């Protein structure tokens, strides 16, 4: 039966609400308000996890987000599982199941613990020096390494939770709701500034809110009572939004910050359902006040990692805030007065404090006196040299320090029994966010801290994150900073009567001496990654000098806590070893996020159907109703083919292709890009952007155009129609529309601003049905009876305005299939009725809807290219055998100059050709490579198949390909070199069908 270590009631804990939870399969009880850590401690459970490398038993080190050790898997084997959750952060809820990580079979008996005994062979970077023999065995070694590494387990099922994003613009963002954050928020809000106050904890008030020392008073009240009152006042203010359980993750330039608001993690599994779990706040703040406080430092000595060894501030918080005793025999180990504060506080709650081990030579402050008065034994000028107890601390050994603190005054070892050791190694300002924002630090030698020096944006740091540690200076400096920063004359905190102890004495020894050789000890610097002081020294010995090298070689600071506890010690040990000052060494980069952020939060709603919206044509519903299969093209969903009666794709495409040539087909061409071009210089503009000439295009005529990049390579193509003297409509490829518009605008605005031309994207404004085939004319005649469709009035490559039942439409007689063909454009919302009208009118001709696949087949029969399929950004129009479209007369057009470079003029470039197979039923694979000989390896490749189909209209396999020097190889036999066979092909002209274009005009 475990003990109940709940020693007192706390206003932060709701003792009327019992909550049951499971840890490693066993049921425990805690109260509402408990974290998993406080609840476990109240049940006398200290052993929570195993370390990363040596699998050493580890307990709870802290009471906050900096926790390196007590990380657990929650709700294992469910969709709601989450690895690497800090027990010190997660609030318990009914139904919570948590388990230890990185141990097998159990946290109490972990096979991996053998690594602890092998540790002499596992110094920093050992893996760089071994596992190299035999050469091909690395993957076997690696298998073992991989399986012993890793902490928790990834979820195996999709996440049922919902995440969200919110944009917030505010005048002032205050990060941290400790005493200074409360002061800042109140001051800002009272000065009519729209203020946002965020804190990662559940309660406002930071550490002050549970401060109960008699020595610390504000206006003669206890500081906690005073702050409680301030908070009450604060909550009454308008234009202030307060969010708790909200952790600022990243501070980017221009005061752009990301914060994660935790909304349901503390609720029972039932209450969580259908609620947003976490929300990413994207904050753009005019001004930022950083009040992130500071983190207590551990001490670095041999075996400083056993369950029961924790930060002194954590011991205090568990007692004062949660009402939990972290041990029954407590000892503190300190280099400053903090531990006394904690010791006195818990002693007054009836929790036994055996002793305080203080490395300072002769500490003598109000606190030390009070501690001694309370009967707590103080070991001055002593250090802990070792600790004992495998799964829980049993005792510690201490020795008296020498004058310089690097060795001992004598060889006496005192052993003190204890089950909890509270370490107080001083404080590290939490400057992480400040540095993320680009802020530069300076080092303060007196107490060995990095503090903000130069602000990169409109921000200020206040309180202990700015290096103020005593309450009076915290309050006075904060008040002063606020006045300057917010440009105001006074704050509510100008004349407070603050009483607090003034002793700042600290004796900083980064690596405490040991009575054993360093090599035999384990003084942990980074608990989670098991990086010790000797690892750091080894790295230095091996020539790794830069802090970044040491960090990477030893993995110090690279765990899930990102070295919040140990980084300063690493710096200190490096500096001491190298004989330089910490300030000269600089820090490593603090990289976002401050605390790990779920991918779900980062992504918010942008999952599933909202990941990237599809664009659908006005006829889309018809395609769905008629069982079309769809192809994704760019952002569009396009009908790919329309299988009937369980047809295969091949059968459907063959049927559609045949129907289009034999009678009539209809294609939804709405996705093609459409750009409306107007202005007196529109013709000149087209002259410059297309390779061919446009000035002489008559009104009402259409022309195919090819657009190049400035490097001479084909970029896009399409038909452009001259609607009026100064009005054109350009079509582009489906995927290229946005880029083409962007490119045209760029040239127009930046290179040719003198041209009177206006561009508008009208892709979405029109729906386009393309009706083709020998009967297309009859169908059109039924739909638009009063339009004269004679070749004289409406020849190929021309355009007419018309009306279908009073609905205006533009009809182009243009063809991508080689058939007599019309493209009918109507206002988009009439698209479906246009389509249905065409279907009705075409019924007697068995009009067949066809999709993109058939369109591709039909155009391939005609040798028409598809940009992006038959070209790959390296093809010029000459390569495509489209010399005819390149104007020789025009002085210039985009890309022209590049066509005359030495390489682009070469005769043996890859050129577009047709291919036919010796076996007419053998269809080539698109992407297949073309060779002359299949030996030797590497095989010389001449080109590849770009488009390939079985043509039902020619009853044979046809393909387009690009082949080196292909233009001059007509009739040449070549080989398609497949993995398991060679296919014989012959190079032919790329136009396979109706070379004379008889059908276009039929």
């Amino acid at each position, binding site marked *: 039966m475990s003990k109940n270590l709940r020693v007192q009631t706390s206003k932060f804990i709701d003792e009327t609400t019992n909550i049951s939870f499971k840890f490693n399969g066993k049921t425990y009880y805690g109260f509402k308000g408990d974290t998993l850590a406080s609840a476990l401690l109240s049940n006398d459970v200290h052993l929570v996890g195993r370390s990363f490398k040596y699998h050493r038993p580890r307990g709870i080190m802290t009471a906050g987000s900096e926790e390196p050790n007590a990380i657990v898997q929650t709700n294992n084997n469910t969709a709601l599982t989450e690895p690497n959750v800090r027990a010190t952060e997660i609030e318990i809820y009914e139904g919570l199941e948590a388990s230890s990580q990185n141990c097998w079979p159990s946290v109490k008996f972990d096979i991996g613990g053998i690594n602890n005994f092998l540790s002499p062979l596992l110094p920093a970077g050992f893996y760089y020096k071994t596992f190299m023999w035999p050469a091909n065995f690395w993957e076997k070694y690696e298998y073992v390494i991989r399986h012993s590494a890793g902490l928790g387990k990834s979820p195996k099922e999709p996440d049922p939770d919902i995440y969200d994003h919110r944009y917030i613009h505010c005048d002032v963002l205050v990060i941290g709701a400790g005493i200074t954050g409360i002061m800042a928020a109140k001051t800002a809000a009272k000065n009519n500034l729209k203020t946002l106050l965020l804190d990662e904890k559940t309660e406002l008030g930071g550490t002050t809110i549970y401060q109960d020392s008699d020595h610390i008073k504000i206006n003669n009240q206890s500081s906690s009572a005073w702050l409680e009152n301030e908070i009450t006042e604060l909550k009454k203010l308008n234009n202030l939004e307060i969010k708790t359980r909200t952790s600022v993750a990243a501070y980017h*330039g221009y005061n752009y910050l990301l914060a994660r608001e935790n909304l349901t993690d503390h609720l029972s599994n039932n209450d969580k359902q259908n609620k947003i779990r976490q929300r990413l706040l994207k904050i753009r703040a005019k001004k930022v006040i950083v009040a992130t406080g500071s983190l207590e430092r551990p001490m670095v000595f041999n075996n400083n990692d056993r369950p029961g060894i924790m930060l002194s501030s954590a011991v205090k918080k568990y007692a004062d805030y949660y009402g939990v005793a972290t041990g029954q025999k407590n000892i503190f180990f300190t280099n400053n007065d903090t531990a006394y504060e904690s010791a006195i506080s818990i002693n007054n709650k009836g929790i036994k404090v055996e002793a305080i081990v203080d490395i300072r030579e002769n500490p003598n402050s109000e606190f030390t006196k009070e501690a001694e008065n309370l009967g707590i034994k103080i070991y001055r000028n002593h250090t802990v040299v070792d600790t004992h107890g495998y799964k829980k601390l049993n005792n510690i050994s201490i020795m008296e320090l020498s004058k310089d603190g690097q060795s001992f005054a004598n060889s006496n070892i005192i052993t003190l029994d204890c089950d909890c050791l509270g370490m107080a190694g001083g404080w590290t300002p939490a400057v992480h966010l400040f540095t993320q924002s680009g802020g530069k630090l300076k080092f303060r030698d007196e107490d060995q801290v990095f503090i903000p020096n130069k602000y990169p944006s409109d921000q200020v740091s206040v309180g202990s994150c700015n290096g103020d540690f005593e309450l009076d200076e915290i309050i006075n400096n904060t008040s002063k900073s606020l006045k300057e920063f917010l440009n105001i004359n006074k704050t509510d905190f100008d004349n407070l009567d603050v009483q607090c102890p003034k002793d700042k004495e600290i004796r900083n020894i980064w690596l405490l001496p040991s009575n054993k050789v360093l090599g035999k000890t384990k003084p942990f610097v980074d608990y989670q990654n098991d990086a010790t002081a000797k690892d750091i020294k080894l790295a230095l010995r091996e020539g790794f000098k830069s802090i970044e090298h040491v960090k990477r070689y030893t993995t110090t600071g690279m765990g899930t806590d990102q070295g919040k506890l140990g980084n300063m010690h690493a710096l200190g040990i490096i500096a001491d070893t190298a004989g330089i000052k910490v300030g000269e060494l600089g820090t490593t980069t603090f990289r976002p996020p401050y605390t790990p952020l779920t991918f779900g939060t980062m992504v918010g709603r942008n999952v599933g159907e909202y990941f990237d919206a599809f664009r659908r044509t006005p006829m889309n519903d018809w395609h769905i109703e008629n069982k079309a299969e769809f192809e994704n093209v760019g952002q569009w969903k396009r009908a790919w083919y329309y299988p009937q009666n369980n047809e295969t794709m091949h059968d459907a495409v063959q049927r559609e292709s045949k129907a289009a040539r034999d009678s009539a087909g209809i294609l939804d061409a709405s996705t093609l890009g459409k750009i409306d071009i107007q202005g007196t210089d529109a013709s000149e503009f087209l002259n410059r952007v297309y390779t061919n000439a446009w000035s002489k295009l008559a009104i009402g005529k259409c022309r195919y155009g090819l657009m190049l990049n400035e490097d001479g390579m084909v970029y896009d193509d399409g038909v452009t129609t001259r609607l009026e003297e100064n009005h054109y409509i350009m079509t582009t490829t489906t995927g290229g529309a946005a880029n083409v518009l962007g490119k045209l*605008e760029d040239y127009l*605005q*930046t290179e040719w601003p003198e041209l009177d031309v206006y561009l508008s994207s009208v892709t979405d404004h029109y729906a386009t049905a393309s009706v083709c085939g020998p009967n297309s004319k009859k169908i059109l005649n039924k739909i638009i009876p009063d339009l004269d469709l004679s070749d004289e009035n409406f020849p190929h490559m021309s355009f007419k305005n018309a009306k279908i039942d009073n609905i205006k439409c533009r009809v182009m007689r243009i063809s991508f299939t080689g058939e007599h063909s019309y493209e009918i454009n109507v206002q988009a919302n009439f698209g479906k009725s246009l389509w249905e009208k065409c279907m009705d009118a075409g019924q007697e001709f068995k009009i067949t809807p066809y999709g993109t696949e058939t369109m591709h087949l039909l155009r391939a029969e005609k040798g028409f290219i598809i940009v992006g399929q038959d070209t790959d950004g390296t093809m010029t129009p000459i390569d495509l055998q489209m010399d005819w479209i390149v104007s020789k007369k025009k002085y*210039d057009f985009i890309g022209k*100059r590049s066509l005359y*470079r030495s390489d682009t003029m070469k005769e043996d470039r890859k050129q577009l050709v047709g291919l036919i197979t010796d076996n007419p039923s053998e269809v080539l694979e698109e992407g297949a490579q073309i060779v002359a000989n299949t030996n030797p390896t590497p095989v010389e490749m001449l080109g590849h198949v770009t488009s390939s189909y079985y043509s039902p209209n020619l009853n044979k396999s046809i393909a387009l390909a690009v082949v080196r020097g292909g233009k001059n190889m007509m009739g040449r036999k070549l080989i398609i070199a497949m993995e398991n066979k060679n296919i014989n092909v012959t190079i032919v002209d790329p136009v396979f069908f109706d070379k004379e274009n008889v059908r276009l005009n039929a």
Partner: protein
Amino acid sequence: MFLISCPYCGVREQSEFKAGGEAHIERPKQPTELSDGEWAEYLFMRKNIKGIQLERWNHAHGCRKWFNAVRDTTNDEIKAIYKMGEKPPTI
């Protein structure tokens, strides 16, 4: 993520804009007169400045206007904005 002040719309997130690279590289008026090397200079060669750069931006998800900016590429601080055709301000 920095902010850019579009001269036509005002201050907006950088993500609304498309970068257009180094500014004031004028397209040669007579490309055919250039050697391959000179044409390559225009096409491909860039100063790629570390420091204060004059560069082009397009308010792609806004007014779609092109304009110029003076930006310190070492810290992405925008020093000035000016319209196409205007002379760069001296910084």
